[in-house]
């Protein structure tokens, strides 16, 4: 189920709008799913994409991962504000996403799971029951 959600999300993040400044496929390898567990270092509530920085244990020390997500205006309208994520700063989190094609420690955010078991996950319109 989790992976089905991730798969259909590809359609979602390719949706067009003023906020977006490229197709996600221009930057990210949509088939290269990654899961990173580490310490939430910093959250930046910026346009055109929010940014989340995660320090994870790597082969040669700390891997400093950077994930971008949807724009702040979108998060506002789906009921998520900066503090919903930033209040976990300094704690362990797990991020699911896709990795940048350039091979850097850069990814597109799809799901965050916090240490207390709570999570935020982007889902496509097709997965949302009609009222």
């Amino acid at each position, binding site marked *: 189920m989790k992976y089905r959600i991730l798969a259909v999300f590809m359609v979602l993040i390719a949706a067009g709008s003023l*906020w977006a400044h490229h197709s996600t496929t221009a930057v990210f390898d949509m088939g290269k799913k990654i899961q990173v567990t580490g310490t939430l270092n910093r959250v930046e509530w910026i*346009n055109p994409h929010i940014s989340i920085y995660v320090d994870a244990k790597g082969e040669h020390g700390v891997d400093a991962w950077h994930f971008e997500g949807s724009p702040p*205006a979108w998060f506002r309208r789906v009921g998520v504000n900066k503090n919903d994520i930033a209040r976990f700063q300094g704690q362990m989190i797990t991020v699911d996403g896709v990795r940048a094609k350039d091979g850097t420690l850069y990814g597109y955010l799809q799901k965050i799971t916090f240490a207390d078991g*709570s999570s935020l996950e982007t889902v496509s319109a097709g997965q949302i029951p009609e009222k």
Partner: protein
Amino acid sequence: MNLRFFCALLAGLLLVGLVAAQQPAKMKRTADGHPDLSGIWAYAVDLPSGGIKRVSNGEVTVKQADLSNRRAPKGEVKGALPFTTAPAYKPEFQAKVKDLIDHESKTDPVFYCGRPGVPRIGSPRKIVQLPNEIIFFYEDMSGDTYRVIPTDGRPHRADANPGAYGDSVGHWEGDTLVVDVTNFDDNTWFGENGYFHTDAMHVTERLWLDANNNLAWQAIVDDPKVLAQPWTITPRVVKPSNEPLEESARCVEDDGHRLQNNDHHGQR
């Protein structure tokens, strides 16, 4: 009261209710008799579809953004001018437009936190209508701009510097506010798909209230240096909103150097 009388009474009440429900809402007007466009209007910038699934304390909730205000209205918009889906450029500029759109992810100013300008910014998020001027407020990731539009009959400023939002003056044509906008710089596109313009661009915006007191907005773009004829764009209709305006987060573009190809998609 016999049954026949009761049924007739009930049918009559239902009929009255039905007729009342079909009556347009009474138009809001200011003391000077013009339609009152004041108020907060729905956020009409396109956003991703879908939503957020939140799991907290074992409870699962899903919330989706309301995008209905960004979509083209279904059916005819009463009061709108005939429109086309794309502008007509002079033949010698059509190759340039194609090249810009083919490389939009690198050439579109708004992809890099640039101002959308008028008319691309669309309908205002908030309007304050005063007797001699009307003020538009916007939320945009490039910065939350405003426009102060005199409606007292004065001409355009002669000494204003050109900009993305130009210099505006307004007047009423019946129940439609008509805003004349000039004095643009040439740093913006007036729409997606590489719609560049020159400093000769002239925009006319039309705003009115529809039968349900929604805000209707439409613009006409002319640029005699590059367009073969003026372009009337698709009208938009936005609903009143209770959502307060909020300062847009600063814009820091960080993907341009990561682009691996020219993939892009439509936006406004």
